[in-house]
C-alpha cells in the first residue's frame, strides 16, 4: 500500500493521517490487481450483452444474473476471434483483467471468445415472445390506431428522469396545448415492474387520457429487460386506451415496443403521438384557400357558360329577327316594286289611252279644222265672190255713171 498523501488539504481537517486521493487509490487497486494471480482464470462464462463497436474496438458486457463485467476486444484481435459475440450468445471469454485507473473500472481484455450456445436470457426472451405471440398480442390486428389529436397524453416514466423532460418537451414542441399527465414509476429495479403496470392501468382507467406513453432513456441491456416481462407487456397490450412505447436508444427493441399500438424510438421521439400543430394550421389554411379558389373557379365557369349561352341566344335571336326583317323587307320591296310597276303600267296604259284619245281627238280636231278651213275657204271664196260681184256691180255702176256722164257731157 502507498503511504498517505501528505499534500492533501483535507488532512488538516480530518482526524486521520490515512487519506489518499482518488488517483492514489486507483493506482493502489491497479497494483493489487496486477499482482493478484488468483484473478487470472482461463475462461469467464456469461451472456454477451450491449455489444457495440467504438474506435475500431469491440465492447460488450459479460452478464450472469445481476453480475456483469465490461469486456473489450482490441481491433487487432477482433478478426482472429473464434466467435464474435452478439446479444443472444452464451460465451466463454479468455483474457486478462485490467484496471482502468482514470475511471476506476475493471475490464476483461479479451484474447478469445468461445460460443457456448444461446444465452440464458435470449431463451427467456424467446419464450416470452412466443407466449405473447400465441395470445395474438403481437398481431397488427390487435393494435389500435392512435387518436388524430389527443387532448390529454398520459406518460408513465420516471418523474425525475431526462426521459420525462425529453418526452414532455417533444410533445409540447409539436402541439403546445396538449395536456400531459405523468405517472411517476421506477423504470428499473425491484419496484419497477409493479409501478409501470400500475401507471399504465391507472391511465387506462382515466377517461381524460387519450393515449398512454411508456418511455425511458437508454441504459445497459439488462436494465431494459423489465420491458420484456410478459405481465407488463400484457397490461400494455390489453388497455382500452391506445398505447405508445419508446424504450432506450434507436436500436433498442423490447417486447413492450412490440405489443404497443405504436413504437417510437426514444423519449425525444415521443412527440410523434401528437400531430404538429403548425402542420395542421397550415393544412387548414391551405384547405381554406383551395376551397375559396375552387368555389371562385366553379362560379366563374358557371357564369362564363351562362354569359356564353346568353350571348349565343342573343346572337341567335338577333340573327333570326334580322333574317325575318330582311325577308319582310325583301317581300315588302318586291310588293312595292310590283305595285310601282303596276302603277306605272296603269299610268302608262292610261297615258297611252289618253294619248290615243288625244290623238283621235286631234285627228277629229284636224278633221274639224279641215272642215272649218274648208268652210272658211268656201265662205271666203263666197265672200270674195260676193265682193267681186259687188266690185263688178260697182264698176258697172261706175261705168254706167261715167257713160251717163259722158253722154250727158256729149250731149
Amino acid at each position, binding site marked *: 500500500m502507498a503511504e498517505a498523501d501528505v499534500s492533501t488539504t483535507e488532512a488538516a481537517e480530518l482526524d486521520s493521517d490515512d487519506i489518499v486521493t482518488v488517483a492514489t487509490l486507483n493506482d493502489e487497486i491497479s497494483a493489487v490487481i496486477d499482482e493478484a494471480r488468483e484473478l487470472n482464470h482461463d475462461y469467464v462464462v456469461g451472456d454477451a450483452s450491449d455489444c457495440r463497436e467504438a474506435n475500431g474496438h469491440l465492447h460488450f458486457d459479460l452478464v450472469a444474473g445481476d453480475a456483469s463485467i465490461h469486456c473489450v476486444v482490441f481491433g487487432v484481435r477482433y478478426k482472429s476471434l473464434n466467435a464474435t459475440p452478439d446479444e443472444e450468445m452464451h460465451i466463454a471469454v479468455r483474457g486478462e483483467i485490467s484496471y482502468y485507473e482514470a475511471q476506476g473500472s475493471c475490464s476483461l481484455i479479451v484474447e478469445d471468445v468461445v460460443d457456448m450456445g444461446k444465452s440464458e436470457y435470449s431463451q427467456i426472451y424467446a419464450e416470452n415472445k412466443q407466449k405473447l405471440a400465441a395470445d395474438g398480442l403481437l398481431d397488427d390486428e390487435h393494435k389500435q390506431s392512435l387518436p*388524430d389529436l389527443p387532448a390529454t397524453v398520459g406518460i408513465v416514466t420516471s418523474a425525475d428522469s431526462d426521459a420525462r423532460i425529453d418526452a*414532455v418537451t417533444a410533445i*409540447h414542441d409539436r402541439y403546445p*396545448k396538449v*395536456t400531459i399527465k405523468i405517472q411517476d414509476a421506477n423504470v428499473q429495479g425491484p419496484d419497477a415492474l409493479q409501478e409501470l403496470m400500475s401507471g399504465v392501468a391507472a391511465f387506462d382507467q382515466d377517461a381524460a387520457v387519450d393515449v398512454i406513453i411508456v418511455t425511458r432513456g437508454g441504459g445497459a441491456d439488462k436494465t431494459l429487460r423489465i420491458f420484456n416481462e410478459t405481465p407488463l407487456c400484457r397490461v400494455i397490450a390489453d388497455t382500452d386506451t391506445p398505447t405508445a412505447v419508446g424504450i432506450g436508444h434507436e436500436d433498442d427493441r423490447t417486447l413492450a415496443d412490440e405489443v404497443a399500438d405504436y413504437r417510437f424510438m426514444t423519449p425525444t421521439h415521443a412527440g410523434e403521438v401528437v400531430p404538429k400543430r403548425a402542420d*395542421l394550421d397550415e393544412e*387548414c389554411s391551405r*384547405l381554406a384557400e383551395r376551397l375559396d379558389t*375552387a368555389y371562385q*373557379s366553379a362560379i366563374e365557369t358557371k357564369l362564363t357558360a351562362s354569359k356564353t349561352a346568353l350571348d349565343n341566344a342573343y346572337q341567335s335571336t338577333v340573327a333570326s329577327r334580322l333574317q325575318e326583317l330582311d325577308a319582310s323587307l325583301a317581300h315588302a320591296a318586291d310588293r312595292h316594286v310590283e305595285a310601282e310597276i303596276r302603277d306605272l303600267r296603269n299610268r302608262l296604259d292610261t297615258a297611252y289611252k289618253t294619248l290615243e284619245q288625244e290623238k283621235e281627238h286631234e285627228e277629229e280636231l284636224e278633221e274639224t279644222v279641215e272642215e272649218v278651213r274648208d268652210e272658211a275657204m268656201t265662205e271666203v271664196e263666197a265672200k270674195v265672190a260676193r265682193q267681186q260681184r259687188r266690185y263688178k256691180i260697182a264698176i258697172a255702176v261706175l261705168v254706167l255713171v261715167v257713160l251717163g256722164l259722158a253722154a250727158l257731157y256729149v250731149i
Partner: protein
Amino acid sequence: MTDNTPISDKVDRIETIIEQLEDGEVSLEEAQELREEGKEILAELEATLDVGDSEIIEQ
C-alpha cells in the same frame, strides 16, 4: 360531421368538396351549398384543434 368525426375524415370531406367544385359539374346553388359545408367543416376543424391547456399534471 360531428365533433367526434376524425380529423382525417373532415379533411377528406373538404378535399372531396374541393374536387367537386374543381370539376365544375355543379350548379351555382350546389356550389354555394358545397362552399358553405366546407366552411362549416373548416370552422369545426379549427375548433377541434383548440384542445388542451398546456397543463402538466404530476400524479
